[in-house]
């Protein structure tokens, strides 16, 4: 049992309707991409949830962690000029 393999881990992203985003659904084990796609289909679209699937080996993912959170995300907090509500529009102007 020590040498057992349960095959590699893959991350699964499902697009539920064409035009929508592929959303992370979970993971599956598989030895190759064809098996990963088929397993993702059999595991995550049994209730008609899918119109397209992406899979990628979990080992290919990099994730930011809490230690990066401050420098990554806090600087965006005060850049209010990126939002339309920042601007004052003259009264009476339409469709802007």
């Amino acid at each position, binding site marked *: 049992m020590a040498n057992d393999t349960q095959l590699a881990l893959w991350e699964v992203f499902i697009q539920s309707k064409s035009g929508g985003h592929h959303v992370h659904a*979970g993971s599956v084990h598989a030895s190759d991409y064809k098996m990963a796609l088929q397993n993702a289909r059999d595991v995550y679209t049994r209730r008609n949830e899918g119109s397209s699937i992406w899979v990628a080996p979990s080992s290919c993912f990099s994730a930011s962690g809490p230690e990066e959170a401050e420098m990554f995300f806090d600087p965006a907090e005060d850049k209010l000029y990126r939002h339309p509500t920042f601007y004052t529009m003259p009264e009476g102007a339409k469709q802007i």
Partner: protein
Amino acid sequence: MDATAVQAVFQDKIEQDLKIEPKDPMPDRYRAHLIRQISQHAHSEVIGMQPEGNWITRAPSLRAKQILLAKIQDEGGHGLYLYSTAETLGISREEMIEQLQTGKAKYSNIFNYPALTWADIGAIGWLVDGAAIVNQVALQRTSYGPYARAMFRICKEESFHQRQGYEIMANMMKGTTEQREMAQDAMNRWWWPALMMFGPHDKDSAHSGDAFKWRIKRKTNDELRQKFIDKTVQQAEVIGLTIPDPDLKWNETKQGYDHGEINWEEFKRVINGNGPCNKQRMEHHIRYHEEGAWVREAAAAYHEKFPTD
């Protein structure tokens, strides 16, 4: 980050009711507790495929066969979601399976009871899944993000499981004398083990303290058991089944049922490996795991040889 700092950041998040995510700092004991609980939950789903699987080839109609297959397939899927959830905490599926097969990890006691007649399929869906869903609905608010998300998906998918079981029981209670006897017999055998699924009384529960402090668990064993009893008694009455508990009676003050004493001796005996099916369940799991080894090896070897296929 040292252990004290980890503890402080972690506790702060917990108190704000924020979810803990895989890369967030967390105390080792929180991680260990989650791995134990989630892998046990995953193993329960997977071992739970066996008692119901015992009836797939004998399901009495094409519709019944489809429903049962789809349901057991869901259990497998839920085991899979939960294994993946535990994998985010740094344990592999290989390790979890090894822990199960060496007895280091447990699974729910309920699956050490046999599914003897077709009515057992009804009772398992209605009572066992009914008890499980009470527990799982509460876990949707658990503090570990991936676990909460898995529970959300599982609860959504399991909503048909209890109904299909209840439908089987209801149909049998409308059927022949033999069918009614079969249904009551299944009720008699599954009721008490279903109540045991919620675990020991709060006053005797070993792990509860930490689980509450860390908001992994948010309702006590007794609260959840009470909830299950209160809704199930009415459902039994509607279809004419008797709850096999002479001490069961409505308590006006607490607005819930009082129930008779649970046989904790039996509970301990089964947990310690002497239930009717403990050995059978584990032998089945080990046998098919070993019989599948050459297939997994072949798939891995093929990928080594043809990495782009």
